[in-house]
């Protein structure tokens, strides 16, 4: 296997290695060996603090992945409207694991299944602000103090954003849904 093949097969790891080398090189130029050493020790300490948090994150998300399927969320939220739909969407967002490559396709399916605008805005907001899977990582990097302040301040945002989206733009949901007709979620729905 050639070097190019190895790089192509591990593109993300290669990018990470290159950027890490650039960062370490910059530190070397800025402060020599001492700065590289002290920064590496700091990086190692952060890694040690993060590992238990990752284990906790895995323990939280594993049962969710096991017992809550995309179908279950689609059935629950597809036809839900009003405050109950927004509340369910917030909870679904908090528990649904995975990145934007997973939750946006799911939101697209919800849109085509009849979910309201407020429900969808709340789901995406809760996925990003209430995400239980992300919380241990946040605690690990940002510390308890900052994370708790951040969490308490943004706790009300997902439902409020959903309510406001529904109130001001909810009546346009049919045109938003029509625009999505030719989108990839239509392909997913009929596949």
């Amino acid at each position, binding site marked *: 296997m050639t070097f190019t093949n190895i790089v192509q097969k591990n593109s993300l790891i290669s990018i990470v290695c290159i950027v890490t080398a650039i960062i370490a090189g910059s530190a070397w130029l800025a402060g020599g060996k001492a700065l590289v050493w002290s920064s590496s020790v700091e990086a190692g300490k952060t890694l040690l603090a993060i590992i238990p948090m990752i284990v906790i994150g895995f323990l939280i998300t594993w049962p969710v992945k096991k017992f809550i399927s995309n179908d279950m969320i689609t059935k629950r939220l597809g036809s839900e409207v009003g405050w109950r739909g927004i509340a369910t969407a917030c909870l679904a967002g908090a528990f649904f694991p995975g990145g934007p490559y997973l939750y946006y396709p799911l939101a697209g399916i919800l849109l085509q299944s009849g979910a309201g605008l407020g429900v969808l805005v709340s789901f995406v907001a809760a996925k990003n602000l209430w995400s239980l899977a992300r919380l241990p990582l946040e605690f690990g990097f940002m510390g308890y103090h900052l994370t708790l302040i951040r969490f308490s301040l943004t706790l009300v*945002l997902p439902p409020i954003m959903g309510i406001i989206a529904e109130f001001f733009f909810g009546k346009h949901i049919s045109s938003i849904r029509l*625009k999505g007709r030719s989108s990839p979620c239509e392909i997913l729905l009929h596949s």
Partner: protein
Amino acid sequence: MRNIVALLIFSCVLAGYGASLLPHDTIHNWFGPQSGILGLIRATLTGIIVPGGPYVVFPLIDVLYRQGVGIDIAVTLFVSSMMLALPTLPFELPFLGWRFAAVRYLIGFGFTLLTGTITWIFFGV
């Protein structure tokens, strides 16, 4: 799994090296206590453009916070990067359309600044 491990190690490298490599004076001028509403807007714009998701944003917030920026800036940067990050737009547009994205960005932008302002009122210097 290998990719997640690589990203985690990379996040720790960012957190470890960031404090010594990010220009302290520039950060102080851009996000320091005297930066006011402009600091909140800069934090919002930074959150919008920074790529890499939580693996980059969390270490960045940690570094900035350790360098002395206010909680209001840290919270604004967090909300902005979670709610308004442009790098996630290519996932949102094909599945939900530009109209949905426009509504979400409009409301998200307003609430990001509002959250930052409320944080500044309660926790600002």
